[in-house]
């Protein structure tokens, strides 16, 4: 017990420094969808956040779905901290107790001073998740396949006589049923009202049936541009960003039909029971603030979830392509558009998807 006073003070100080250092240099795991999309998030959100806070991010990809998250939460071994999810999954995951609640009023104010609750576009804030961008489900085609008249509206997708060739569609009820109804003449504002009735669902399936034998079903977002490029299909549904990149970067003859586009949010959710909840929350707050959201649009044409980000959206990374005309939220592209009704899908997802899966299997 002859440690000198000076030495013990020194030791104590060293321990204190060690502790604070440990508390500051944290690490979180962020899960997203991969490809050009994750790349845009790394550039616009993750690198600036790491630089600002000194923490590190482990970035990994997944293919959607809540199964892995559910397994982690149920086993109490949570290794994912922040996950990029679609709104319907954000809601069903929240319902299932898989995500932490997020108090959106505590998020930073917009660059223009607007409070967070006003600054986010409607539907961007849910109990457990904060939207970062809005993307659109659109119809795209290969313009070299239709030398004469070009398709311009949703109904053209279902017109195999005028625009022959195979069609690519996502193997899911969501989005397809809405497209089918709009092609069948339902006004975009009434789509979910019609879809809520048994007759409406029957009508949508009947419309889908007319092209069923010509459909190639895709599951991952990277598939539609491949299907178009390989000539396997002449027209396909796709996420708008996935068609934009090959069209602009590689000069592929892909054209987007904005008529009937369906906007969906991608959201950050924090996995319930994570040990890094504060850090995760800090990352979510940072990345959904005005500037990072606008920066992301430099890399991919997805619309920022905050209104205050719009003035900051500039040009594509090539330095010459103006991003605004490629944004789903651009007024010219919004003439006939719907925002996916997440409440409707939370109620009917299981039922309609089961019927859809059964319908495909027949």
């Amino acid at each position, binding site marked *: 017990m002859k440690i000198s006073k000076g030495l013990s003070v020194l030791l104590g100080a060293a321990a204190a420094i060690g502790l604070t250092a440990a508390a500051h240099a944290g690490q979180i795991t962020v899960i997203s969808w991969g490809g050009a999309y994750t790349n845009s998030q790394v550039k616009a959100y993750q690198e600036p956040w790491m630089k600002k806070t000194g923490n590190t991010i482990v970035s990994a990809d997944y293919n*959607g*779905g*809540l*199964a892995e998250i*559910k397994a982690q939460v149920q086993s109490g071994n949570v290794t994912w901290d922040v996950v990029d999810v679609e709104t319907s999954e954000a809601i*069903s995951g*929240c*319902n*299932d*107790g898989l995500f932490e*609640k997020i108090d959106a009023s505590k998020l930073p104010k917009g660059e223009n001073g607007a409070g967070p609750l006003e600054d986010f576009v409607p539907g961007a804030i849910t109990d457990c998740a904060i939207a970062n961008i809005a993307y659109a489900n659109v119809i795209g085609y290969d313009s070299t396949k239709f030398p004469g008249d070009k398709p311009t509206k949703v109904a053209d997708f279902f017109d195999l006589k005028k625009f022959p060739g*195979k069609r690519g569609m996502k193997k*899911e009820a969501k989005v397809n049923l809405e497209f089918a109804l709009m092609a069948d003449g339902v006004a975009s504002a009434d789509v979910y009202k019609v879809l809520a009735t048994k007759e409406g669902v029957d009508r949508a*399936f009947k419309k889908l049936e007319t092209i*069923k034998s010509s*459909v*190639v*079903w895709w*599951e991952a977002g990277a598939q539609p541009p491949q299907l178009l490029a*390989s*000539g*396997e299909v002449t027209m396909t549904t796709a996420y708008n960003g996935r068609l934009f990149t090959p069209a602009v970067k590689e000069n592929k003859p892909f054209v987007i039909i904005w008529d009937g586009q369906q906007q969906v949010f991608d959201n950050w959710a924090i996995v319930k029971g994570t040990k890094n909840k504060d850090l995760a929350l800090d990352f979510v707050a940072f990345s959904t603030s005005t500037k990072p959201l606008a920066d992301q649009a430099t890399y991919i044409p997805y619309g920022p979830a905050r209104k205050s980000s719009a003035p900051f959206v500039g040009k594509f990374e090539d330095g010459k392509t103006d991003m605004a005309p490629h944004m789903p939220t651009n007024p010219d592209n919004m003439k006939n558009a719907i925002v996916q009704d997440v*409440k409707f899908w*939370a*109620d*009917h*997802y*299981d*039922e309609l*998807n*089961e*019927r859809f*899966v*059964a*319908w*495909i*299997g*027949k």
Partner: protein
Amino acid sequence: MSLAIDRGALTVRLAKAERRGKIRAFLLVAPLLAFVLLSFVIPIANLVTQAFYGDLVSSTMPKTTTELATWNGAMPVPESLCESFVTEFKAAKVKDPALPTRIATLVNREFSGSLSKLRPVANNELSAPYCGALAKLNDEWTKPEIWNAIKIVSPSVSPRFFIQSVDYRLNADGSIRPETEENKIHLALFGRTLYVAAAVTLFCALLGFPIGFLLAHLPARTSNLLMIIVLLPFWTSLLVRTTAWIALLQQNGVINDTLVALGLIADDHRPVMMYNMFATLVAMTHVLLPFMILPLYSVMTGIKPNFVRAARSLGATPFTAFWRVYFPLTIPGLGAGCLLVFILAIGYYITPALVGGQSGQLISNIIAFHMQKTLNWPLASAIGTLLLAGVLLLYWLYNRLVGIEKMKFA
């Protein structure tokens, strides 16, 4: 006398030594045993249990569960039921804010649309009389459907997921109704899965037998080279192999382009070889072929050439010598290969989903769908349990017909 004592002591020592040996042997296999138990037996048991057991509702709302059990379906529902339902449902929210919606999700699967009717019950102030308060929240509470749905999900032990696995649904009164025509799918997919698995097994056997024969009877140097060619795709990622088939078979793929270039088919009459059953069978046969070749090869190398020679010298034709002498000796390998390929094929879903289009929808895809998309794990477990039972049945049949002890894997 002293001899007898010695003998007794010897027996004791022998027994001791034997026991020590047994313990040592057990300790050697203990890590493997623990691994198998932890990573295989327990998860499977857990999933099988989920298929028929779930106490989410009965443990959070015990009074409601007992009252619903005695409720005969008559409307309006008794006030006591409304009261215990409302109080217990609200209490659940206090215990864990996620509980009401978890329960509502279960109810929603029996009666679509219930989710948005149940959640307000937990979120709003309600006072007696509770039946009236519920009716004021939403009209649906005066109708029997939603109560029936709650009744169906309330017991902790329920066969409803197994019933749903075979395209029927459980009613609240315990009777069974067929699934609606547009939602019927499971039986058809069980059938298609068996068909695909059987066809792939047959193709693998037809293709694998000559290859195994060649490998076993060529000089060692050549056969080693060929063996590497057989194994090479085996070491390649499944996804790479599947994607390679897409590149080969698609409309503008390698095969079609070559055929057009050679003038064998017209450019606008390219055969469809992708996103159909043909692609599924080709890709699956290719992926699973090594599992057939390896056991066949190992059995064939063990067959002495003298047997066939003896048959020939006794006057058998080449065919008779092959069919009556050689072929029966390959049965253990052929059987093992068929069993392996069939069981693996039954659980396949990535390859058919990628190359099979609509026909590539197999029962495993439905299991994956419920595991990943709808999070209906009990239903996925029930379908999986039925599949497991089917495989075990086949295994038992095989054992009765061929005999498992004769099997040789590699």
